[in-house]
């Protein structure tokens, strides 16, 4: 197991955003996390990275108990987050943003070659390498966020809603890129997405979360075949818990 999470809790004061979530990922897997707004998806990823305080539970990454590690140490270990909203640094150039991805690595010629690889993968970035990131379009910012994540040399890349706010064509580019990273670079992927159908196309497994709890886990086929799944994902179904029991039995 590359990632093993047991009974993870995250609280913001009285808000209990993540409730005893357990999940695991084997190396090389692509796993999706689906859930309505406010379900606790971002809180989960941020807690896994160590930038949100873990109120309870245990996180094991690559065989090490990282629960009490600071984020910087987890990033060094290859646990990387491409955050919600992309978060390019506007005052930095495109290239400087990429170098921030490699913050904890020595800038060897190997790293410089990886920067060039990112430019090969995303030619739009190459054309703007010396421009401030503020001039990038939404799609280009997402490319930059993924490129920056790649430069951290991830073993596990967590992506938080990478297609949010992108045109269908650009979202498609992002999904294709994620698929390639998994296949070509053998990076394990934990993908939070609103675009359920597209996420389930590239994922081997998915977790469905609702109100801070994992309510279902299974292969895309199992989840898709159950008509009430989408309803639950959208947070409208009242029959959620009954459905989730069935799904658990199925998986």
């Amino acid at each position: 197991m590359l990632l093993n999470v047991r009974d993870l809790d995250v609280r913001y004061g009285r808000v209990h955003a993540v409730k005893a979530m357990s999940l695991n990922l084997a190396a090389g897997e692509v796993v999706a996390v689906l859930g309505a707004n406010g379900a606790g998806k971002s809180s989960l990823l941020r807690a896994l990275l160590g930038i949100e305080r873990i109120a309870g539970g245990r996180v094991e990454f690559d065989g090490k108990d990282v629960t009490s590690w600071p984020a910087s140490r987890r990033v060094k270990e290859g646990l990387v987050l491409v955050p919600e909203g992309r978060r390019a640094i506007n005052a930095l150039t495109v290239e400087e943003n990429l170098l921030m991805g490699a913050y904890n690595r020595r800038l060897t010629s190997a790293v410089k070659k990886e920067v060039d690889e990112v430019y090969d993968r995303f030619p739009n970035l190459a054309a703007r390498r010396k421009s401030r990131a503020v001039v990038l379009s939404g799609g280009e910012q997402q490319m930059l966020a993924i490129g920056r994540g790649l430069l951290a040399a991830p073993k596990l890349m967590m992506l938080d809603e990478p297609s949010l706010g992108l045109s269908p064509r650009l979202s498609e580019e992002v999904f294709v890129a994620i698929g390639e990273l998994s296949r070509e670079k053998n990076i394990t992927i934990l993908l939070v997405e609103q675009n359920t159908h597209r996420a389930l196309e590239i994922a081997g497994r998915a977790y469905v979360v609702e109100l801070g709890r994992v309510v279902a886990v299974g292969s895309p086929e199992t989840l898709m075949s159950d008509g009430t799944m989408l309803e639950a994902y959208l947070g409208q179904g009242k029959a959620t818990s009954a459905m989730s029991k069935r799904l658990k039995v199925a998986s």
Partner: protein
Amino acid sequence: MIGQQIINGVTLGSVYAMVAVALTLSIGVLNFLNFSIPGLFMIGGMALWALLDAGIPWPLAVVGALVIAVAASLMVERFTWRWLRGAPHFVPLVSSMAFLLLFEHIAIAYWGSDMRVVPEAFSGGDWRIAGLVIGIPQLMGLLCSIALVAGLSWLLASTRTGRALRTIAEDPDTALLLGVDINRVVSVVFIVAGLFTALAGILFAINYRQVHPFMGEAVGLKGISAMIIGGMGNIWGSIVGGLIIGTTEVFAISYFGADFVDLAVFGLLLAILILRPTGLFRGMQPVRFGI
């Protein structure tokens, strides 16, 4: 005569400029108006005097004063910035003010509240060019401050630490998720602030040869004015602001007398603020508001 006044103005102005750079770096990266800076200025000057008084040779005394001030600055970091992160933003400001008082009263306790005279640094070392007198300490001070500021802007523009500082300035949360150890990088800001301010205090002590526990307050006010004139968060702007204030002060003394100095300086500040509320320069440097 005017030439000599410009030289004297630049000498005084470079002291203000260094204080302003320390203040502006702290504002630009941390959005923190660090009121302990006038105290660090005083520590630079008084520690120099105390070490010389104890018979320690000049170069060692200068290094010693810098080390003491940087250590004091890191203590401020530990107990204002690091401790109070997440508190409302005025809390670090108020506690840094408490550090100013603390430093001043520690100085009084150790060295008394009297004015102390610093021995002459380079006797007979003045340069006379075309009737102008340029003191060696004046020249050295100017060169030091130019070199330090050039070094600082190189650090910010072209190094890993500089990129991290600019990232923290814009978005500390993202800095954290990229694996930046914020505490470690932020201490660089305090080291630089301590170094610049203490060097300004040392230059002041060498040039004007008087130190006392409250020497930082007037200079701190002028430094804040210089920072505002130059545009907050803008390093080269602070230099320009410091030089403007220094020369204004020197000219005001010789034309209107010492009583009108503050009127001239703060009148100028007010006029510039009315014409350009954000200061003379803006966005020239990548350092911007953050946190």
